[in-house]
């Protein structure tokens, strides 16, 4: 126990050291303009983010991005899980559904975005791209979670006279929940990429819009601030869903 704790402390310490070095390097490059004007010191970026007069801008953009993200993520989540459940319960359709979702995944979202803009409109494209990325990850996670039920549990429920649906409800689905939660964690950053890409193609507002505008107008601190915000959102989502995954693994394994 103590050994595990000290190993953990070492790994946290190393992590902090790594991040510290990274930030110091960033600051040095920025202060001395080692990579030119487009690389500001991190202190400038933080000062920019801290200025209250810019908060309405950031919170509007962040709000729009998060709204699109949550909507797309939830749609993709349910679509992915339900499709994988259907594929599991209706084996004849599984190969077809597997191939379809792999095909959807193979199309680069950057190529799909213009089509979606025309088809769905500027407002819905970020959510749609987020939903597509989330769908695929959750389809794969749910499929593999359902397929990996341990044999002795399946044997037991068969001998007890459980129908396929009962086995699904009592066994396969609960056993798949940790894997589904792991998929949910992996899907979050992918989903955020979908939203940002969707916003680049002309959404009315959002972090992606901020990034594109700042880039085109050479507003370097604004650009870096927007990117930093994106990273923070992504990390927070990943962390929160990682915690959720730990809870599920604890409960269902």
């Amino acid at each position, binding site marked *: 126990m103590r050994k595990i704790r000290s190993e953990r402390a070492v790994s946290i310490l190393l992590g902090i050291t790594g991040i510290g070095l990274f930030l110091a390097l960033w600051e040095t490059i920025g202060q001395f303009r080692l990579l030119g004007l487009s690389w500001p010191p991190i202190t400038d970026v933080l000062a920019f983010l801290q200025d209250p007069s810019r908060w309405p801008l950031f919170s509007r953009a962040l709000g729009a991005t998060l709204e699109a993200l949550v909507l797309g993520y939830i749609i993709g989540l349910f679509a992915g899980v339900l499709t994988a459940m259907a594929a599991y319960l209706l084996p004849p359709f599984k190969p077809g559904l597997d191939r379809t979702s792999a095909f959807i995944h193979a199309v680069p979202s950057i190529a799909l975005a213009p089509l979606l803009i025309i088809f769905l409109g500027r407002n819905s494209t970020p959510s749609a791209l987020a939903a597509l990325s989330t769908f695929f990850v959750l389809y794969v996670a749910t499929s593999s979670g359902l397929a990996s039920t341990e044999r002795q549990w399946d044997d037991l429920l*068969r*001998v*007890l006279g459980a129908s396929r649906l009962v086995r699904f409800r009592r066994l396969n689905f609960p056993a798949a929940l940790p894997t589904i939660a792991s998929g949910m964690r992996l899907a979050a950053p992918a989903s955020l990429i979908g939203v940002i890409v969707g916003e680049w193609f002309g959404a009315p507002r959002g972090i992606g819009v901020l990034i594109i505008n700042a880039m085109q107008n050479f507003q370097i601190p604004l650009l870096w601030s927007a990117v930093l915000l994106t990273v923070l959102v992504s990390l927070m989502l990943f962390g929160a869903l990682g915690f959720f995954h730990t809870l599920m693994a604890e409960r269902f394994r």
Partner: protein
Amino acid sequence: MKKMRGRLSTVHPVPSVGPQAPTAISVSEVTKKFRLDDGRELTALEGMSLELTTGSFVALLGPSGCGKSTILRLVASLEVPSKGVVAINGQPPAELAASHRLGVAFQDHALLPWLDVRANVELPFRVAGQAVDRRRVQDLIDLVGLAGFESARPKQLSGGMRQRVAIARALVLQPEVLLLDEPFGALDAVTRRQMNIELQRIWSERRITTLLVTHAVDEALFLADRVIVMSGRPGRVVRTLDVPFARPRQPDVMRSSEFHRLSDELTDALDSPSGSLG
């Protein structure tokens, strides 16, 4: 009912446990072949026959890979014979499984980790779509000595306690047939002995027709009315022994010279598969 005898049980005539007891499980002339991944065929059982009378406890004793688990899986409806017939009370095993009249415990306890002890014991009721008989669930938890652990999760329990839960779960629907596939095989010797003593006590109270698969001689001898020694491949019967000890059996039976003598006999039969065939 037609009395069916395999070629090997003709060599060793099998006296029935109670002369009038009807046949509960009959395996007649069963051959089971498995197709291996590389396309070859493996014959796990060939022309296998055995019968269990109602209310008897029969142990299949044999080394691993002798096909004893295959027999249990056939009776459990988890496998279908390539040739021959398996029947429980004259019906195909799948019918008994579908009407929730089989009880089973495996070497791996197969408890669902997300359910606590009580919910695991209640599972057969839920699977059967029946109302949970809380009283019966509690009685069984008490019977296997787990009172006070109703809300514990399987991972909080010791190996022996998990197997107790599995036994309670196997009995909860009052099955017509109880199938035990090395239920204590993963336990240490001390716990295993204790579990055998407990199972003997529980079984003596209910006397459900039971098929036990095991590779432990003393376990078979202490628990069963009849021990069938098998050898592999393909699996066949090399020795059948009717256990003379009266029930309920006390643990000190295991210290008697008769127990040791029979134990040696069975061990010999295990060691020299063809020996007792003469």
